[in-house]
């Protein structure tokens, strides 16, 4: 029997479209379910008050603030180190054994389960450096966790800047560092931001790395310094869902909604900045 190429194509398109739609469906369902069940809980009091009556009522303000601190802290630590490491690896490192080992280590770092980061943070920052369970320890642990994401995406962004731009810059007598600083880096920033977005979302949402390093079970006040413990949204959500009996469902979903909104909002800001920078890109 002769095959009809147009029919084959239609069938292929159908499955490709189906696979794409199947990705959207769970995301949509999660968002709809959380909004539906969580929205009634969202009041000014819920957002601005401390948890009360064993976290069965009151608000989640300390957890919101804690998560903001942790995310900013981890980005503050991971972004500069990650970008500098990426510049070294893509622009300066020679293709030798050491470079290969470093690259392999970064790939493996990305595959380490997050609870292992938690234990590592406990051993290194909490115990060895004596930072205690604190925002500093938690931020550093989350920072190490998102480093591989930032390094990998930054490297890709740097390497996607056309080689010819570098040649032109060098041929005009600019030094290698000037070329990187004035030509390569400005054109790689949108890509680097993409990595930062991914890292941000991950740092905001992970529970395991903060479990032993910073998260307080119940701390109805704001942290006073970076050496203080703090509540954090993902851990708070875990606690009120599994550790505390008789928490109203809408409080749980309300907390999830706030966490989701925060992550999406942070992503949105980064996406807007990226779009603005892309528009400026002139090739």
């Amino acid at each position, binding site marked *: 029997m002769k095959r009809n190429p147009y029919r084959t194509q239609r069938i292929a398109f159908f499955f490709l479209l189906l696979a794409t739609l199947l990705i959207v469906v769970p995301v949509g369902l999660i968002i709809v379910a959380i909004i539906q069940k969580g929205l009634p809980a969202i009041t000014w009091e819920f957002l601005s008050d401390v948890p009360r009556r064993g976290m069965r009522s009151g608000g989640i303000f300390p957890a919101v603030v804690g998560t903001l601190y942790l995310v900013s802290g981890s980005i503050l630590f991971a972004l500069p180190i990650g970008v500098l490491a990426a510049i070294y690896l893509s622009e300066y490192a020679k*293709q030798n054994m050491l470079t290969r080992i470093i690259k392999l280590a970064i790939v493996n770092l990305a595959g380490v389960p997050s609870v292992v980061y938690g234990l590592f943070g406990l051993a290194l920052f909490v115990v060895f450096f004596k930072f205690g369970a604190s925002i500093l320890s938690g931020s550093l642990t989350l920072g190490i966790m998102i480093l591989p994401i930032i390094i990998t995406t930054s490297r890709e962004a740097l390497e996607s800047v056309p080689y*010819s*731009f570098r*040649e*032109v*810059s*060098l*041929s*005009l*007598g*600019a*030094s290698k560092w*000037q070329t990187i600083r*004035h*030509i390569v880096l400005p*054109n790689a920033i949108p890509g680097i931001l993409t990595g930062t977005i991914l890292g941000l979302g991950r740092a905001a949402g992970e529970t395991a790395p903060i479990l032993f390093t910073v998260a307080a079970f119940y701390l109805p006040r704001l942290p006073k310094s970076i050496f203080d413990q703090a509540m954090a949204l993902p851990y708070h959500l875990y606690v009120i869902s599994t550790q505390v009996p008789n928490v109203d469902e809408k409080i749980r979903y309300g907390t999830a909604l706030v966490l989701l909104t925060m992550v999406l909002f942070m992503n949105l800001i980064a996406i807007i900045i990226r779009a603005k920078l892309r528009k400026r*890109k*002139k*090739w």
Partner: protein
Amino acid sequence: MVKFDIQNLSIWFKEAQALKDVTMQVEAHEILSVIGPSNSGKTTFLRTLNRLNDLELSLRMQGFVYFEGKDIRTMDVELVRKKMGMVFALPLPLPLSIFDNVAYGVRMHGEHNKKKIIQAVQEALQQAYIWDEVKDRLSESAFKLSGGQQQRLCIARTLAVGPEVILFDEPCSGLDPISTAKVEETMLKLKEQYTIVLVTNNVKQAARVGDRTAFFLMGELIELEKTDKIFTSPAQARTNDYISGKFG
């Protein structure tokens, strides 16, 4: 006066030999055309002169290149590239405005005085005969210019740095005949102040603008003569075959 003195230059990429024992001189204020079929080592030769070949990790070099008597490998690489401006085969503006493209090199060499930068940009654009076409749109992206304009902008960008030699690497291979004529006209005028080495695939272009012409084949320098001589009575049969279009 001899600008470049090239002695027994051989270059290998891994095992493949790209240049074989080339010995020649480039005189000051001449246009030296380098012709030959593709893969004959013309571009490799040109990129040796401003040490852009240093970027190739698999490259091995033997022999010497002296610039005004100094071995270029003992010179500061940034200085070598400042003195030897290069214009590439395709117009390659940087992703910046027209003004910033020309100002880029000036700034990178440490000039921060705004007035001096503006002056240098204007002079370079005038020298490259593109000032009248771009003077009202200096802040626009360089990518908005036509191909020929972009290439003359690249020439201006090279001139702004204050080179002594300009290396052209098939500068018209992506351009239409009218743009080509403009670039050639620019080259002829630049020769008064600069020394020009022009690598070209276009034999007729070599005949039009070159004072002397070097013919490369398979990495060897076959013949280097005054352009009139090489196009009327070349010493080598292979040169004659190439310029008359029997191969290439």
